[in-house]
């Protein structure tokens, strides 16, 4: 299949995708459906047990039928809460297993994409200037693949900065969403960085700020770099125009970008759970698989819109 998101988008709404699902996923769907039913039963049981324990112990204690000791009351409530939490763990387990069963095959429809099990990328992410300091790192999914001869690395990340403990605990979300890493087609000094962030009226950080001549671009983005010339070498007038167009379409407003370590990093902020197969929907429902493909297409669209696959595009 030609490596272009437009072709993939066209095929995903055609009979080709249905045939692909029937042919490639059919054998796996029965297995997934069994797993799904078992997980739903598990979830319902956990919720019923948990709710019954909590409601029951409160009712028994307050109605005076039986005087429950304080220790037993606490243990019962804790077990109840534990059961309800288990339901969420079961849901997450289904999500993981569904991905193991279906996602790899589904990715082959898009092209040369694979699930990458190595989620130990915390150190690499921590070195990036793109994100503020964080001390809690979660990598939910990681995909690796090739699009228009570019090696892509896509990771769903949740970065947080936690300070204090107990009542003084403060948690700040540094980043939640998708990070795309792709090689920089231009020869960029490896020890330099250029960061493009959403423009903020209340941003008074002037250190390393790059003031660019495109007024429209400056309305949407703030640029920081430790090398004024390298920053302008990357941010050509045509590239700034494309970034502005992206912002006008509403996509660019959730995007942060950096050029560092010889790579381009695109961070798409989004709180939603990407590449997820919903548990309360039949395993054979094609719309669920289509939604995953479309999510990946959304990411590929950004690469295309910015012409990042071409040196001249930058």
């Amino acid at each position, binding site marked *: 299949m030609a490596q272009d998101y437009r072709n993939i988008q066209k095929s995903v709404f055609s009979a080709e995708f249905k045939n692909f699902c029937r042919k490639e996923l059919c054998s796996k769907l029965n297995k997934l459906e069994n797993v799904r039913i078992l997980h739903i039963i598990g979830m319902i049981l956990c919720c019923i047990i948990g709710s019954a324990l909590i409601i029951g112990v409160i009712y028994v204690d307050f109605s005076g039928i039986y005087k429950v000791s304080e220790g037993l009351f606490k243990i019962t409530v804790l077990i109840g809460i534990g059961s309800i939490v288990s339901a969420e763990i079961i849901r997450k387990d289904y999500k993981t297993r569904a991905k193991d069963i279906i996602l790899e095959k589904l990715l082959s429809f898009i092209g040369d994409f694979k699930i990458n099990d190595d989620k130990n990328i915390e150190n690499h992410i921590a070195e990036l200037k793109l994100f503020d300091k964080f001390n809690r790192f979660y990598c939910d999914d990681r995909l690796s693949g090739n699009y228009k001869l570019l090696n892509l690395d896509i990771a769903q990340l949740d970065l947080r900065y936690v300070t204090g403990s107990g009542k003084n605990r403060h948690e700040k979300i540094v980043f939640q969403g998708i990070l795309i890493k792709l090689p920089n087609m231009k020869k960029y000094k490896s020890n330099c960085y250029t960061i493009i962030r959403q423009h903020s009226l209340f941003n008074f950080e002037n250190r390393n700020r790059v*003031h660019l001549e495109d007024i429209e671009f400056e309305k949407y983005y703030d640029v920081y770099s430790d090398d004024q010339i390298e920053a302008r070498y990357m941010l050509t007038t045509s590239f700034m125009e494309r970034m502005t167009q992206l912002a006008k379409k509403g996509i660019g407003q959730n995007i942060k970008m950096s050029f560092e370590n010889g790579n381009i990093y695109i961070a798409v902020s989004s709180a939603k759970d990407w590449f997820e197969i919903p548990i309360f929907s039949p395993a054979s429902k094609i719309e669920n698989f289509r939604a995953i493909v479309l999510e990946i297409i959304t990411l590929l669209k950004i690469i295309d819109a910015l012409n990042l696959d071409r040196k001249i595009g930058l």
Partner: protein
Amino acid sequence: MNSVIIIIIALLVLILYLYGVYAKVIMSANSVREAISGIDIQLKKRYDLIPNILTIAKKFMEHEKSIFEKITELRTKAMNSMPGSAQKFAAEAQLDSQLKSLMVNVENYPALKSDATMVQAMETYNEVEEHIAASRRFYNSALTQLRNAIQIFPGSLFAACAGETASYSYYETDTASKSSIKASDYL
């Protein structure tokens, strides 16, 4: 007593404010100097590259001696001009134009165009040109900031601190680059 304290505080605030303006003028002036040195670094790369390109091209383009001589002459002139001066910009613009016409002529020599060393040299040339363009954009941006800083009151009070940098002119493209391109000339 209270009024004395208020006057002292007001004076301190005024001094701090004026110091801030003064610092901004100095920083802007330094930024322009940094930009000029940035252009010079990129131009130096171009000056170093020109002899290599000419050596490769001479092997294939024996009938284009005049263009080689012109480029060599302009290179020397540009190298000897004062950084950031109007003469330097003019010499660079002429050199730019001659190099572009050399690159267009290369198209007429398929053997030269496909020569591995020439391909590499042209790639490097394009990269250097992009860096030169980037450094010129930085220079224009730095100069705008400096002019704003020294022309708007109270920055104008410190204009003298900016020294000779205030006399620098913007980099503008040559008239040949501004004129429209006739595709028929290249077909």
